[in-house]
C-alpha cells in the first residue's frame, strides 16, 4: 500500500515546519547557549545584551512553530504521535521542562530589579536553552533509528539512550549554537558593534566545525543503527545532504573571509538547516518509523489531511500579510519601545483630583421612560411565552 498524495503533502508540510522551527527556534536556543557561555557578569555583559536584543522580537513566534508541529503531527499522523509521546515520555517531558523554565526566566529577567535576581533568572534561561534542544535531538534520534515501538506499553528507555540518539542530541545543541552565532554576527554588524562581530564570528566557526564533526559521527553511526535511513541518505537523499554540507562550508568560508553579507550569510545558513531536515524526511520515506510504521497506515483519513492542507493555506494567507506588515513597520522604524509617559502623566494630572466626577448631561427623561417601557414589554412577553401552555410537557 503506497501512501496517499494527501499524506505525502501533509508530511512535506510537517517537514517544512520542522525545518522552520529548527532554524528560528534553533537560533533562539543557541542564543541562550551563548548567553550561558558568555562568562562573568562583567565580561559577558555586551554579548548578553546583543543576544537579548535579537532574541526578544522573535521569541513568541517560535513557540507557534512548535505548537504547529505538535498539532500537525497528532492530526495527520495520530498513531505515530501517540507512540512517540508514550515511548519517549521522559525526554519529551524534559524538553518541555526546558521550555517552561526558559519562559519563566525570560518573562522575569527583564523586570528583575536586583543583579542577583537577574543573574538567577538569566542562568535559568540559559540552562534551559541547553536542555530543550538536546532532548529534542534525542527524540529525533530515537525515531530515525526505528527504536520507537508502534504500540509502546510505556516508557522506552532504550529508544532514546542509544548512542545515535545521544549523538543526535549533542548535534542539535551544536547546530543551535552554530545557527545562532551566524545570525548574531549579522545582528552585531547591523548595530555597528565590530568587537561583537568578531566575537561571534569566532564562535560561529568553532560551533560550525563542531557541528560538522558531530554530524559526521552521527552519520557514520547511522550505518549500523539505522541501515534503511543510511542507505537512502547515501542514495536518493544524497543531493540534499551534499547541498547542506556545501552551504555549511560556504558559511564558514564567508566567516573566514569576513564577508558578512546580510542576505547570503542568512540564506546559506538557512539552506544548510533546511536541506538536512528535508534530507532526513526523504530518507525516512515512506516510513514514519523506519521500517515498522509506514506512512500509509500511520496517517489520518483523507478528510483530516485535506483540512490540515487548507489550514496551512489559510495560515499562509492570513499570517503572511501580518508578518509583511510587521516587517514593513520595523523597516520604517515605526515600532519602538513605548517611551516614557511623561507628557500623558502631566496632562492627566492637570485635572484636579475630586471625590466624585463632574456629572455629564443626563439622558433626557423621555428617552429613559421609553427605554424602560420597551424593556418591560420585552420582559413581560418573554415571561408569558415561557409560561404559556404550549411549552408545558
Amino acid at each position, binding site marked *: 500500500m503506497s501512501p496517499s498524495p494527501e499524506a505525502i503533502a501533509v508530511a512535506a508540510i510537517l517537514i517544512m515546519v520542522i525545518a522552520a522551527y529548527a532554524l528560528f527556534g534553533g537560533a533562539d536556543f543557541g542564543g541562550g547557549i551563548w548567553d550561558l557561555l558568555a562568562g562573568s557578569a562583567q565580561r559577558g555583559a555586551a554579548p548578553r545584551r546583543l543576544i537579548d536584543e535579537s532574541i526578544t522580537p522573535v521569541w513568541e513566534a517560535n513557540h507557534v512553530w512548535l505548537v504547529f508541529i505538535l498539532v500537525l503531527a497528532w492530526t495527520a499522523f495520530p498513531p505515530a504521535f501517540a507512540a512517540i509521546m508514550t515511548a519517549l515520555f521522559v525526554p*519529551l517531558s524534559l524538553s518541555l521542562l526546558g521550555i517552561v523554565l526558559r519562559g519563566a526566566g525570560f518573562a522575569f529577567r527583564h523586570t528583575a530589579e536586583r543583579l542577583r535576581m537577574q543573574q538567577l533568572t538569566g542562568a535559568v534561561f540559559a540552562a534551559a536553552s541547553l536542555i530543550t534542544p538536546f532532548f529534542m535531538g534525542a527524540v529525533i534520534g530515537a525515531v530515525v533509528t526505528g527504536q520507537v515501538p508502534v504500540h509502546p506499553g510505556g516508557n522506552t528507555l532504550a529508544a532514546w539512550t542509544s548512542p545515535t540518539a545521544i549523538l543526535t542530541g549533542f548535534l542539535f545543541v551544536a547546530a543551535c549554537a552554530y545557527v545562532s552565532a551566524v545570525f548574531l554576527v549579522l545582528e552585531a554588524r547591523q548595530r555597528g558593534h565590530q568587537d561583537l562581530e568578531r566575537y561571534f564570528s569566532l564562535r560561529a566557526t568553532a560551533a560550525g566545525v563542531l557541528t560538522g564533526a558531530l554530524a559526521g559521527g552521527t552519520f557514520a553511526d547511522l550505518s549500523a543503527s539505522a541501515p534503511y535511513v543510511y542507505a537512502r541518505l547515501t542514495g536518493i537523499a544524497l543531493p540534499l545532504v551534499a547541498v547542506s554540507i556545501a552551504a555549511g562550508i560556504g558559511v564558514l568560508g564567508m566567516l573566514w573571509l569576513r564577508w558578512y553579507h546580510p542576505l547570503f550569510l542568512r540564506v546559506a545558513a538557512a539552506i544548510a538547516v533546511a536541506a538536512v531536515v528535508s534530507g532526513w524526511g526523504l530518507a525516512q520515506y515512506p516510513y514514519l518509523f523506519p521500517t515498522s510504521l509506514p506512512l500509509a497506515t500511520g496517517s489520518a483519513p483523507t478528510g483530516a489531511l485535506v483540512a490540515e492542507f487548507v489550514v496551512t493555506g489559510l495560515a499562509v494567507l492570513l499570517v503572511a500579510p*501580518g508578518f509583511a506588515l510587521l516587517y514593513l513597520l520595523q523597516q520604517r522604524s515605526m515600532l519602538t519601545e513605548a517611551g516614557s509617559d511623561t507628557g500623558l502623566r502631566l496632562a492627566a494630572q492637570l485635572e484636579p483630583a475630586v471625590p466624585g466626577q463632574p456629572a455629564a448631561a443626563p439622558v433626557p427623561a423621555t428617552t429613559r421612560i421609553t427605554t424602560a417601557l420597551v424593556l418591560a414589554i420585552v420582559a413581560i412577553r418573554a415571561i408569558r411565552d415561557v409560561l404559556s401552555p404550549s411549552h408545558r410537557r
Partner: protein
Amino acid sequence: MGAAAHVLAVNPVPARSQMGSSLGFHIILACFGVAFAAVTMTAEWMGIRHGDAAALLLARRWSKVMAVLVAVGAVSGTVLSYEMGLLWPGLMGRFGAAIGFPFSLEGIFFFLEAIFVGVYLYGWDRLPPWAHWWSGMPIVVSGVLGAMSVVAANSWMNSPAGYTLSHGKITNVDPWSVFFNASTPYETAHMVLAAYMVTGFLVAGVYAVGLLRGRRDRYHRLGFGVPFTIAGVCAPLQVMMGDIIARFIAHNQPVKFAAMEYVTTTTRDAPEWMGGIFINGKVYFGAAIPAFDSILVGFSPHTKVIGWDSVPPSQRPPLVTLIHLSFDLMVGIGFFLFALAAWQAWWWWFHRRLLMTPWFLVPSAVSGVAAVAAMEAGWVVTEVGRQPWIVYRVLLVSQAVTPSSGVTVTLAVILILYAILTVVSIGVPMVMSRRWRQGTAAEEEAEQVPYGPSPARFSPAGPPAPPAGPGASSGGPEPL
C-alpha cells in the same frame, strides 16, 4: 502491557490532576489573551476620541501588562499542547485526526495574535493614533476566534461528531461537523463571556483598591470604570447563557446534569438543591426547593429529569459533591457579579457617576477573584462531570491515559513550576505598578517588556519632550 503500567492505566488520577492544574492555570492567562486587548482599546478609543490623557495613559500601561501575561500564556499554552500527547496518547492516537482540526485553526489565530501584539505594543510612539488603534483590532478578533477554536475541541469531547469509526479506527473525518458539534455554540459563548468577565473584573478590582485607598482621580476612576463596564455588560448575558446551557446539558448529557443537581433517580417534581453534601444516597446540609429543578429544565414541575440511576454505576461521574458544589458556586458568583453590575448601572443611570461607597467598592475589589473562582468551578463541573468518559460515551479516560510511568513526577514538577509562574504573572505587573506610582519618567522609559523590537535598534529619536506647563516636576514622585 506490564502490570505496573496496567495499574496506572486504570488509575488515571495523576494524569487527570496534571491536566486539570495545567488547564486551570492556563485558562486565567488565556482570558487576558482573549479580552485584555478589547479593554485596552476601549480606553485608547476614549483617549483619542476625547483627547483624554488619563485614558491614554491607562491604555499604554495596560498594553505593557498584556505583554507579560501573553508571554507567560504562550508558555503555559505550549505545555498544554504537549500534555495532550504526553498524558492522553490513547485519545490522540485514536481521535487525533478528528480533534486536531479545531486545534489547527487555533494555531492560526495564536500566530496572528502574536504578530499584532508586537505591532500594537511597539507602535505607540510612531504610528498615527487611529492606525495604532486599528492595529489592536486583529488581537481582539483572533483572541475571540482562537478561544472558540480551542473550546470547540473541548465541546467535541462532550458531543463527539463528524467522524466514522470502523473496527475502532477512524476511517472518515468531516472537519466542519467536528468544529460545529452540538455543544460548540453553548460552550464557546459561555467561555468568551467568561473571559471578558474575568479580565474586566480583575482589572477593575485593582483600581477599586486604589479608589478605596483614596486615589479618586480621573485615572483611577477610568481604570475602574472601563473594565467594570465591559465585564458588567457581560454579566447578565452570562447568567442568561448559563440558564440556557444548563437546559441543554439536561438533554444532551443528562448524567452530568444529574450530578450537578443531585438527581439520584429519574423523576418528575425534581427538587433544586442549594448547597449540601451527598453521602450514601442522602443530601446533608442542603436546602431543597421542591420541583424547582423540573421547572428550570422544562418550565413545568411535571418535567421529567433524568437521574444518574439511568446508567450503571461504572458510567457515573465520581465526586458528585464536588460537581454540585462547584456548580452552585459558579451560579452563586454569577448572580453576585450580575447584582454588582446592576447596582452600578442603576446608579449611573440616575446619577451619572461611579459608586464610591465601600459597600460597593469592597465587593468590586474581590469581583475579579470571584470571577476566576466561578470560571474554575465551571471547568470543574464540565470536566469532572464528563467522567469517566474522555470522549462522551465513546472513550473512557482509563483507555486514553498514558501507560508511561512517571506522571506522578511530572505532576509534582508542574505544580512547582506553575507556582513560580503564578508569582511571575502576579509579581511582574505589581512591580511595574509600583514603579509607575513612585518612579520617575526616566525609570519607566528604561522598562522592558518580554518581546518586540528593541529600543537600541529602532529608536533613532529620543522620547517626546514633556510639555512645559504647571507641575512640570517630572523628577519627583507623582501621586497618580
